Protein backbone atom coordinates (compact mmCIF):
# COMPACT_ATOMS: atom_id res chain seq x y z
CA UNK A 1 0.00 0.00 0.00
CA UNK A 2 1.18 3.48 -0.79
CA UNK A 3 1.80 5.65 2.20
CA UNK A 4 0.05 8.97 2.35
CA UNK A 5 0.22 12.36 3.97
CA UNK A 6 1.86 12.47 7.34
CA UNK A 7 3.49 9.12 6.82
CA UNK A 8 4.97 9.72 3.37
CA UNK A 9 8.72 9.64 3.57
CA UNK A 10 8.37 9.02 7.30
CA UNK A 11 8.20 6.00 9.49
CA UNK A 12 4.74 4.48 9.18
CA UNK A 13 2.86 3.28 12.24
CA UNK A 14 0.51 0.30 12.33
CA UNK A 15 -1.64 -1.38 14.97
CA UNK A 16 -0.47 -4.92 15.70
CA UNK A 17 -2.24 -5.73 18.96
CA UNK A 18 -5.51 -4.83 20.67
CA UNK A 19 -6.99 -5.41 24.10
CA UNK A 20 -10.05 -4.17 25.93
CA UNK A 21 -12.29 -4.53 28.89
CA UNK A 22 -15.53 -2.58 29.02
CA UNK A 23 -19.12 -2.80 30.26
CA UNK A 24 -19.61 -5.21 27.34
CA UNK A 25 -17.11 -7.53 29.01
CA UNK A 26 -13.63 -8.83 28.64
CA UNK A 27 -11.79 -9.08 25.36
CA UNK A 28 -11.85 -7.42 21.96
CA UNK A 29 -13.82 -10.09 20.09
CA UNK A 30 -16.50 -10.44 22.75
CA UNK A 31 -16.91 -6.67 22.84
CA UNK A 32 -17.21 -6.42 19.09
CA UNK A 33 -19.70 -9.23 18.66
CA UNK A 34 -21.90 -7.87 21.44
CA UNK A 35 -21.63 -4.33 20.05
CA UNK A 36 -22.58 -5.41 16.53
CA UNK A 37 -25.46 -7.46 17.94
CA UNK A 38 -26.88 -4.30 19.49
CA UNK A 39 -26.30 -5.34 23.08
CA UNK A 40 -25.45 -2.87 25.84
CA UNK A 41 -23.51 -2.96 29.11
CA UNK A 42 -25.75 -0.93 31.39
CA UNK A 43 -27.38 -1.54 34.73
CA UNK A 44 -28.09 0.11 38.01
CA UNK A 45 -24.89 1.03 39.81
CA UNK A 46 -23.69 -1.94 41.84
CA UNK A 47 -20.29 -0.67 43.03
CA UNK A 48 -21.86 1.43 45.79
CA UNK A 49 -25.23 2.62 47.04
CA UNK A 50 -26.18 5.41 44.64
CA UNK A 51 -29.76 5.77 45.86
CA UNK A 52 -29.18 9.31 47.13
CA UNK A 53 -27.78 10.49 43.80
CA UNK A 54 -29.78 11.71 40.80
CA UNK A 55 -27.88 9.38 38.43
CA UNK A 56 -28.10 5.71 39.36
CA UNK A 57 -27.11 3.87 36.19
CA UNK A 58 -23.70 3.07 34.80
CA UNK A 59 -21.78 0.71 32.59
CA UNK A 60 -19.71 -1.42 34.94
CA UNK A 61 -17.28 -4.12 33.92
CA UNK A 62 -19.13 -7.35 34.70
CA UNK A 63 -17.59 -9.58 37.36
CA UNK A 64 -17.48 -13.29 36.63
CA UNK A 65 -15.39 -16.12 35.24
CA UNK A 66 -12.81 -15.06 32.65
CA UNK A 67 -14.02 -17.67 30.15
CA UNK A 68 -17.51 -16.18 30.12
CA UNK A 69 -16.23 -12.64 29.62
CA UNK A 70 -16.35 -11.46 33.20
CA UNK A 71 -13.58 -9.98 35.28
CA UNK A 72 -11.89 -12.26 37.79
CA UNK A 73 -9.13 -9.97 38.89
CA UNK A 74 -6.89 -12.67 40.34
CA UNK A 75 -6.54 -14.11 36.84
CA UNK A 76 -4.78 -10.88 35.85
CA UNK A 77 -3.21 -9.26 38.90
CA UNK A 78 -1.67 -11.25 41.79
CA UNK A 79 -3.79 -10.89 44.92
CA UNK A 80 -0.96 -9.33 46.94
CA UNK A 81 -0.49 -6.62 44.30
CA UNK A 82 -4.16 -5.74 43.87
CA UNK A 83 -4.27 -3.40 46.87
CA UNK A 84 -1.32 -1.46 45.47
CA UNK A 85 -3.39 -0.25 42.53
CA UNK A 86 -6.64 1.56 42.05
CA UNK A 87 -9.23 -0.17 39.89
CA UNK A 88 -8.31 1.91 36.83
CA UNK A 89 -4.85 0.34 36.95
CA UNK A 90 -6.36 -3.14 37.30
CA UNK A 91 -8.49 -2.54 34.22
CA UNK A 92 -5.55 -1.07 32.31
CA UNK A 93 -3.44 -4.13 33.09
CA UNK A 94 -6.20 -6.46 31.90
CA UNK A 95 -6.49 -4.70 28.54
CA UNK A 96 -2.73 -4.25 28.15
CA UNK A 97 -2.15 -7.95 28.77
CA UNK A 98 -4.59 -8.88 26.01
CA UNK A 99 -3.07 -6.31 23.63
CA UNK A 100 0.56 -7.28 24.21
CA UNK A 101 -0.21 -11.00 23.92
CA UNK A 102 -2.29 -10.38 20.82
CA UNK A 103 0.64 -8.55 19.19
CA UNK A 104 3.01 -11.44 19.82
CA UNK A 105 5.75 -8.89 20.55
CA UNK A 106 8.21 -10.29 23.10
CA UNK A 107 11.41 -8.29 23.00
CA UNK A 108 14.30 -10.66 23.73
CA UNK A 109 17.21 -8.24 23.55
CA UNK A 110 17.95 -5.26 25.76
CA UNK A 111 17.93 -3.08 22.65
CA UNK A 112 14.45 -4.27 21.68
CA UNK A 113 13.20 -3.67 25.21
CA UNK A 114 14.61 -0.15 25.12
CA UNK A 115 12.82 0.47 21.81
CA UNK A 116 9.43 -0.51 23.30
CA UNK A 117 7.52 2.11 25.25
CA UNK A 118 4.21 2.64 27.00
CA UNK A 119 1.75 5.54 26.78
CA UNK A 120 -1.42 4.76 28.72
CA UNK A 121 -3.45 7.60 30.16
CA UNK A 122 -6.57 8.20 32.20
CA UNK A 123 -8.93 11.11 32.51
CA UNK A 124 -9.25 11.03 36.28
CA UNK A 125 -7.11 8.24 37.73
CA UNK A 126 -7.49 6.76 41.20
CA UNK A 127 -10.52 8.67 42.37
CA UNK A 128 -11.85 5.96 44.70
CA UNK A 129 -8.38 5.49 46.21
CA UNK A 130 -8.11 9.22 46.85
CA UNK A 131 -11.58 9.22 48.41
CA UNK A 132 -10.75 6.36 50.79
CA UNK A 133 -7.41 7.90 51.75
CA UNK A 134 -9.13 11.22 52.45
CA UNK A 135 -11.49 9.49 54.84
CA UNK A 136 -8.52 7.93 56.65
CA UNK A 137 -6.93 11.34 57.08
CA UNK A 138 -10.21 12.96 58.09
CA UNK A 139 -10.62 10.32 60.78
CA UNK A 140 -7.32 11.45 62.28
CA UNK A 141 -5.48 8.38 61.06
CA UNK A 142 -3.05 10.05 58.68
CA UNK A 143 -0.22 7.88 59.99
CA UNK A 144 -2.19 4.84 58.86
CA UNK A 145 -2.24 5.95 55.23
CA UNK A 146 -1.02 3.12 53.04
CA UNK A 147 2.43 3.57 51.52
CA UNK A 148 0.74 2.46 48.31
CA UNK A 149 -1.76 5.31 48.32
CA UNK A 150 0.19 7.62 45.99
CA UNK A 151 1.37 5.01 43.46
CA UNK A 152 -2.14 3.54 43.48
CA UNK A 153 -3.75 6.81 42.47
CA UNK A 154 -1.22 8.26 40.02
CA UNK A 155 -2.42 8.25 36.43
CA UNK A 156 0.92 7.30 34.86
CA UNK A 157 1.14 4.15 36.96
CA UNK A 158 -0.71 2.06 34.36
CA UNK A 159 2.22 2.78 32.05
CA UNK A 160 4.56 2.05 34.95
CA UNK A 161 3.02 -1.32 35.79
CA UNK A 162 2.88 -2.41 32.14
CA UNK A 163 6.54 -1.57 31.68
CA UNK A 164 7.50 -3.45 34.84
CA UNK A 165 5.40 -6.48 33.88
CA UNK A 166 6.89 -6.81 30.40
CA UNK A 167 10.30 -5.15 30.76
CA UNK A 168 9.48 -2.41 28.24
CA UNK A 169 12.23 0.17 28.80
CA UNK A 170 11.40 2.73 26.10
CA UNK A 171 9.50 6.00 26.57
CA UNK A 172 7.18 5.71 29.56
CA UNK A 173 4.56 8.38 29.33
CA UNK A 174 0.96 9.15 30.12
CA UNK A 175 -1.70 11.41 28.68
CA UNK A 176 -4.22 13.30 30.82
CA UNK A 177 -6.71 15.21 28.70
CA UNK A 178 -10.02 14.23 30.31
CA UNK A 179 -12.27 12.50 27.79
CA UNK A 180 -9.85 13.07 24.90
CA UNK A 181 -7.12 11.03 26.63
CA UNK A 182 -7.52 7.82 24.62
CA UNK A 183 -7.14 9.48 21.21
CA UNK A 184 -4.30 11.71 22.38
CA UNK A 185 -2.47 8.67 23.78
CA UNK A 186 -2.71 6.80 20.47
CA UNK A 187 -1.85 9.86 18.39
CA UNK A 188 1.06 10.96 20.54
CA UNK A 189 2.47 7.45 20.83
CA UNK A 190 2.24 7.03 17.05
CA UNK A 191 4.22 10.24 16.64
CA UNK A 192 6.88 8.97 19.05
CA UNK A 193 7.34 6.02 16.72
CA UNK A 194 7.30 8.26 13.63
CA UNK A 195 9.96 10.47 15.20
CA UNK A 196 12.11 7.50 16.11
CA UNK A 197 11.80 7.54 19.89
CA UNK A 198 10.57 3.95 19.84
CA UNK A 199 9.69 1.13 17.44
CA UNK A 200 6.78 -0.21 19.48
CA UNK A 201 4.42 1.65 21.84
CA UNK A 202 1.67 0.19 24.01
CA UNK A 203 -0.92 2.97 24.01
CA UNK A 204 -4.42 3.70 25.24
CA UNK A 205 -6.47 4.67 28.24
CA UNK A 206 -7.99 3.23 31.39
CA UNK A 207 -10.72 4.55 33.68
CA UNK A 208 -12.70 3.46 36.72
CA UNK A 209 -14.81 6.37 37.90
CA UNK A 210 -18.01 4.53 38.79
CA UNK A 211 -17.48 5.49 42.41
CA UNK A 212 -19.22 7.98 44.73
CA UNK A 213 -16.93 10.90 43.88
CA UNK A 214 -17.05 10.20 40.14
CA UNK A 215 -20.81 9.89 39.89
CA UNK A 216 -21.59 12.68 42.36
CA UNK A 217 -19.06 14.98 40.71
CA UNK A 218 -20.42 14.56 37.21
CA UNK A 219 -23.96 14.78 38.63
CA UNK A 220 -23.14 18.17 40.09
CA UNK A 221 -21.77 19.24 36.72
CA UNK A 222 -25.18 18.24 35.28
CA UNK A 223 -23.45 15.92 32.85
CA UNK A 224 -25.09 12.56 33.65
CA UNK A 225 -28.38 11.02 32.57
CA UNK A 226 -30.91 11.03 35.42
CA UNK A 227 -34.26 10.15 33.84
CA UNK A 228 -33.64 6.52 33.01
CA UNK A 229 -32.75 5.05 36.40
CA UNK A 230 -35.40 2.35 35.98
CA UNK A 231 -34.50 1.60 32.36
CA UNK A 232 -30.69 1.69 32.30
CA UNK A 233 -30.50 0.25 28.78
CA UNK A 234 -32.28 3.36 27.46
CA UNK A 235 -30.17 5.98 29.26
CA UNK A 236 -27.40 6.42 26.69
CA UNK A 237 -29.12 7.76 23.55
CA UNK A 238 -26.81 9.92 21.46
CA UNK A 239 -28.59 12.41 19.17
CA UNK A 240 -32.00 11.31 20.41
CA UNK A 241 -34.36 14.10 21.46
CA UNK A 242 -34.90 12.47 24.88
CA UNK A 243 -31.22 12.25 25.80
CA UNK A 244 -30.41 13.89 29.11
CA UNK A 245 -26.74 13.30 29.82
CA UNK A 246 -24.06 10.68 29.51
CA UNK A 247 -23.88 7.35 31.28
CA UNK A 248 -20.63 6.65 33.08
CA UNK A 249 -18.74 3.62 31.85
CA UNK A 250 -15.51 2.04 33.04
CA UNK A 251 -12.83 -0.05 31.43
CA UNK A 252 -9.76 0.18 29.28
CA UNK A 253 -8.71 0.01 25.66
CA UNK A 254 -5.09 -0.60 24.68
CA UNK A 255 -3.41 -0.96 21.30
CA UNK A 256 0.09 -2.00 20.36
CA UNK A 257 1.47 0.47 17.84
CA UNK A 258 4.44 -0.55 15.78
CA UNK A 259 6.66 0.84 13.07
CA UNK A 260 5.49 -0.74 9.81
CA UNK A 261 8.79 -2.30 8.67
CA UNK A 262 9.39 -3.60 12.19
CA UNK A 263 5.97 -5.27 12.19
CA UNK A 264 6.45 -6.68 8.69
CA UNK A 265 9.91 -8.03 9.49
CA UNK A 266 8.59 -10.13 12.34
CA UNK A 267 5.52 -11.25 10.43
CA UNK A 268 3.09 -9.55 12.81
CA UNK A 269 -0.57 -9.34 11.89
CA UNK A 270 -1.43 -5.77 10.99
CA UNK A 271 -4.89 -4.45 11.82
CA UNK A 272 -4.66 -0.89 10.52
CA UNK A 273 -2.38 2.07 9.97
CA UNK A 274 -2.48 5.32 11.93
CA UNK A 275 -2.48 7.74 9.03
CA UNK A 276 -3.78 10.96 10.54
CA UNK A 277 -3.98 12.77 13.84
CA UNK A 278 -5.34 16.22 14.60
CA UNK A 279 -5.70 18.28 17.74
CA UNK A 280 -7.18 21.59 18.79
CA UNK A 281 -8.21 23.67 21.76
CA UNK A 282 -11.51 25.53 22.14
CA UNK A 283 -10.26 28.49 24.20
CA UNK A 284 -13.89 28.92 25.18
CA UNK A 285 -15.25 27.28 28.35
CA UNK A 286 -14.19 24.68 30.93
CA UNK A 287 -16.98 22.21 30.12
CA UNK A 288 -19.09 23.51 27.21
CA UNK A 289 -17.90 23.14 23.62
CA UNK A 290 -17.39 26.24 21.52
CA UNK A 291 -20.29 27.38 19.29
CA UNK A 292 -20.67 25.12 16.26
CA UNK A 293 -18.08 22.85 17.92
CA UNK A 294 -15.54 24.74 15.89
CA UNK A 295 -12.73 23.17 17.94
CA UNK A 296 -13.93 19.73 16.91
CA UNK A 297 -14.14 20.94 13.32
CA UNK A 298 -10.50 22.05 13.42
CA UNK A 299 -9.32 18.82 15.08
CA UNK A 300 -10.95 16.78 12.30
CA UNK A 301 -9.58 19.16 9.67
CA UNK A 302 -6.08 18.87 11.12
CA UNK A 303 -6.33 15.08 11.14
CA UNK A 304 -7.35 15.07 7.47
CA UNK A 305 -4.53 17.42 6.61
CA UNK A 306 -1.96 15.30 8.42
CA UNK A 307 -3.24 12.24 6.55
CA UNK A 308 -3.22 14.03 3.21
CA UNK A 309 -6.86 13.01 2.75
CA UNK A 310 -10.12 14.71 1.99
CA UNK A 311 -13.53 13.99 3.50
CA UNK A 312 -14.32 11.85 0.43
CA UNK A 313 -11.80 9.30 1.75
CA UNK A 314 -13.58 8.71 5.06
CA UNK A 315 -16.42 6.16 5.17
CA UNK A 316 -17.05 5.98 8.91
CA UNK A 317 -16.82 8.39 11.83
CA UNK A 318 -16.91 7.10 15.37
CA UNK A 319 -18.42 10.13 17.06
CA UNK A 320 -17.62 11.47 20.50
CA UNK A 321 -21.44 11.48 20.85
CA UNK A 322 -21.85 11.24 24.62
CA UNK A 323 -25.66 11.54 24.77
CA UNK A 324 -25.52 15.16 25.87
CA UNK A 325 -26.66 18.40 24.28
CA UNK A 326 -23.24 18.65 22.60
CA UNK A 327 -24.08 15.71 20.27
CA UNK A 328 -25.80 18.00 17.79
CA UNK A 329 -22.88 20.41 17.79
CA UNK A 330 -20.53 17.60 16.80
CA UNK A 331 -23.01 16.52 14.13
CA UNK A 332 -23.12 20.05 12.78
CA UNK A 333 -19.33 20.26 12.70
CA UNK A 334 -19.08 16.96 10.81
CA UNK A 335 -21.76 18.08 8.33
CA UNK A 336 -20.00 21.36 7.75
CA UNK A 337 -16.62 19.70 7.25
CA UNK A 338 -17.87 16.88 5.02
CA UNK A 339 -20.18 18.98 2.85
CA UNK A 340 -21.60 16.79 0.06
CA UNK A 341 -19.50 13.84 1.25
CA UNK A 342 -21.72 13.70 4.34
CA UNK A 343 -24.39 11.93 2.27
CA UNK A 344 -22.19 8.86 1.91
CA UNK A 345 -20.95 8.89 5.48
CA UNK A 346 -21.78 6.49 8.28
CA UNK A 347 -21.34 7.87 11.78
CA UNK A 348 -22.30 6.20 15.03
CA UNK A 349 -21.76 6.59 18.74
CA UNK A 350 -20.75 3.34 20.41
CA UNK A 351 -21.20 5.09 23.75
CA UNK A 352 -24.84 4.12 23.29
CA UNK A 353 -23.72 0.58 24.19
CA UNK A 354 -20.76 1.14 26.52
CA UNK A 355 -21.43 4.48 28.14
CA UNK A 356 -18.71 7.07 28.38
CA UNK A 357 -15.40 5.59 29.51
CA UNK A 358 -13.86 9.07 29.91
CA UNK A 359 -10.10 8.66 29.45
CA UNK A 360 -10.51 5.16 28.00
CA UNK A 361 -13.27 6.13 25.54
CA UNK A 362 -11.06 7.20 22.65
CA UNK A 363 -9.02 4.02 22.90
CA UNK A 364 -11.91 1.53 22.93
CA UNK A 365 -13.56 3.49 20.14
CA UNK A 366 -10.40 3.36 18.02
CA UNK A 367 -10.45 -0.42 18.46
CA UNK A 368 -14.14 -0.66 17.51
CA UNK A 369 -13.34 1.47 14.45
CA UNK A 370 -10.49 -0.84 13.42
CA UNK A 371 -12.89 -3.77 13.65
CA UNK A 372 -15.37 -1.80 11.54
CA UNK A 373 -12.65 -1.68 8.89
CA UNK A 374 -11.79 -5.36 9.30
CA UNK A 375 -15.39 -6.57 9.00
CA UNK A 376 -16.86 -3.78 6.85
CA UNK A 377 -19.51 -3.20 9.49
CA UNK A 378 -20.63 0.09 11.02
CA UNK A 379 -21.64 -0.52 14.66
CA UNK A 380 -25.01 0.90 15.70
CA UNK A 381 -26.16 3.92 17.68
CA UNK A 382 -28.64 2.41 20.11
CA UNK A 383 -31.76 4.25 21.28
CA UNK A 384 -31.69 6.75 18.44
CA UNK A 385 -35.48 6.68 18.19
CA UNK A 386 -36.20 10.32 17.39
CA UNK A 387 -33.22 12.39 16.30
CA UNK A 388 -33.37 15.89 17.75
CA UNK A 389 -31.82 17.10 14.52
CA UNK A 390 -32.27 15.60 11.09
CA UNK A 391 -29.14 14.91 9.07
CA UNK A 392 -28.07 13.46 5.75
CA UNK A 393 -25.48 11.45 7.66
CA UNK A 394 -26.50 7.87 8.35
CA UNK A 395 -26.14 7.49 12.09
CA UNK A 396 -26.73 3.72 12.02
CA UNK A 397 -29.72 3.83 14.32
CA UNK A 398 -30.42 0.66 16.33
CA UNK A 399 -28.84 -1.92 14.03
CA UNK A 400 -25.32 -2.47 12.68
CA UNK A 401 -24.91 -2.07 8.94
CA UNK A 402 -22.64 -3.67 6.41
CA UNK A 403 -20.76 -0.87 4.70
CA UNK A 404 -17.55 -0.74 2.72
CA UNK A 405 -15.18 0.81 5.23
CA UNK A 406 -11.44 1.21 4.70
CA UNK A 407 -10.73 4.53 6.37
CA UNK A 408 -12.24 5.86 9.60
CA UNK A 409 -12.04 8.96 11.73
CA UNK A 410 -12.61 8.78 15.48
CA UNK A 411 -13.34 11.82 17.65
CA UNK A 412 -12.78 12.49 21.33
CA UNK A 413 -13.32 15.78 23.11
CA UNK A 414 -12.57 16.66 26.73
CA UNK A 415 -13.36 19.15 29.45
CA UNK A 416 -11.07 22.12 29.22
CA UNK A 417 -11.90 22.43 25.54
CA UNK A 418 -9.49 19.80 24.23
CA UNK A 419 -10.25 17.99 20.97
CA UNK A 420 -8.54 15.10 19.20
CA UNK A 421 -9.26 13.12 16.04
CA UNK A 422 -7.43 10.12 14.71
CA UNK A 423 -7.65 8.59 11.23
CA UNK A 424 -7.02 4.88 10.74
CA UNK A 425 -6.91 2.90 7.52
CA UNK A 426 -6.86 -0.78 6.71
CA UNK A 427 -3.51 -2.08 5.43
Amino acid sequence: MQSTGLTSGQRRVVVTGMGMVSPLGLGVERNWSRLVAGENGFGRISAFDASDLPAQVAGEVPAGPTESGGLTLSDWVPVKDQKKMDRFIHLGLVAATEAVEDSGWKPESEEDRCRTGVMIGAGIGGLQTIYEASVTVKEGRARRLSPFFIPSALINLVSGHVSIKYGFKGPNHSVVTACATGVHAIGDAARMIMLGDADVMVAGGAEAAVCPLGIAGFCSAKALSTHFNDTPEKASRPWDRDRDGFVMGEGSGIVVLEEYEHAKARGAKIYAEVIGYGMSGDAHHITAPAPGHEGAYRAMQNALRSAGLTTADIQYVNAHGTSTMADDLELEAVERLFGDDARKLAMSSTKSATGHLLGAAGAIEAIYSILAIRDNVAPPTLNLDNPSRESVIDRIAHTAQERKIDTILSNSFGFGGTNASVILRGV
Partner: protein
Amino acid sequence: MSEIADKVKKIVVEHLGVDESKVTPDASFIDDLGADSLDTVELVMAFEEAFSVEIPEDAAEKITTVKDAIDYIEKQKAA
Protein backbone atom coordinates in the same frame (compact mmCIF):
# COMPACT_ATOMS: atom_id res chain seq x y z
CA MET B 1 3.95 -20.72 69.35
CA SER B 2 2.57 -17.68 71.14
CA GLU B 3 -0.64 -16.00 70.15
CA ILE B 4 1.35 -12.98 69.03
CA ALA B 5 3.59 -15.10 66.82
CA ASP B 6 0.55 -16.72 65.22
CA LYS B 7 -1.03 -13.37 64.49
CA VAL B 8 2.19 -11.90 63.08
CA LYS B 9 2.54 -14.88 60.79
CA LYS B 10 -1.02 -14.49 59.59
CA ILE B 11 -0.52 -10.81 58.80
CA VAL B 12 2.68 -11.55 56.88
CA VAL B 13 0.98 -14.27 54.84
CA GLU B 14 -1.93 -11.98 54.07
CA HIS B 15 0.07 -8.90 53.13
CA LEU B 16 2.90 -10.49 51.19
CA GLY B 17 0.85 -13.25 49.61
CA VAL B 18 3.39 -15.91 50.55
CA ASP B 19 2.91 -19.51 51.59
CA GLU B 20 2.61 -19.99 55.33
CA SER B 21 5.44 -22.54 55.35
CA LYS B 22 7.88 -19.86 54.21
CA VAL B 23 7.10 -17.58 57.14
CA THR B 24 9.72 -19.01 59.50
CA PRO B 25 11.11 -16.95 62.41
CA ASP B 26 14.34 -16.21 60.57
CA ALA B 27 12.69 -15.31 57.27
CA SER B 28 13.63 -11.81 56.12
CA PHE B 29 10.73 -9.83 54.72
CA ILE B 30 12.81 -8.44 51.87
CA ASP B 31 15.35 -11.19 51.19
CA ASP B 32 13.14 -14.26 51.70
CA LEU B 33 9.52 -13.18 51.39
CA GLY B 34 9.68 -10.89 48.34
CA ALA B 35 8.74 -7.65 50.09
CA ASP B 36 9.94 -4.27 48.88
CA SER B 37 10.50 -1.20 51.05
CA LEU B 38 6.87 -0.07 50.70
CA ASP B 39 5.61 -3.53 51.65
CA THR B 40 7.59 -3.36 54.88
CA VAL B 41 6.12 0.04 55.71
CA GLU B 42 2.66 -1.41 55.21
CA LEU B 43 3.50 -4.50 57.27
CA VAL B 44 4.59 -2.40 60.21
CA MET B 45 1.35 -0.40 59.95
CA ALA B 46 -0.60 -3.64 59.96
CA PHE B 47 1.24 -4.78 63.10
CA GLU B 48 0.52 -1.44 64.78
CA GLU B 49 -3.15 -1.75 63.92
CA ALA B 50 -3.51 -5.40 64.88
CA PHE B 51 -1.71 -5.15 68.21
CA SER B 52 -2.61 -1.57 69.12
CA VAL B 53 1.03 -0.62 69.53
CA GLU B 54 3.09 2.22 68.19
CA ILE B 55 6.24 1.30 66.35
CA PRO B 56 8.43 4.39 65.92
CA GLU B 57 10.32 4.74 62.67
CA ASP B 58 13.76 3.93 64.06
CA ALA B 59 12.40 0.78 65.68
CA ALA B 60 10.54 -0.15 62.50
CA GLU B 61 13.75 0.02 60.51
CA LYS B 62 15.24 -2.70 62.70
CA ILE B 63 12.35 -5.07 62.16
CA THR B 64 13.59 -7.04 59.17
CA THR B 65 12.60 -10.62 60.02
CA VAL B 66 9.50 -12.37 61.33
CA LYS B 67 11.25 -12.94 64.64
CA ASP B 68 12.18 -9.26 64.92
CA ALA B 69 8.53 -8.37 64.66
CA ILE B 70 7.38 -10.97 67.17
CA ASP B 71 10.07 -9.99 69.68
CA TYR B 72 9.32 -6.29 69.39
CA ILE B 73 5.59 -6.72 69.84
CA GLU B 74 5.97 -9.19 72.72
CA LYS B 75 8.25 -6.73 74.48
CA GLN B 76 5.78 -3.88 73.97
CA LYS B 77 2.88 -5.99 75.19
CA ALA B 78 4.82 -7.14 78.25
CA ALA B 79 5.80 -3.60 79.21
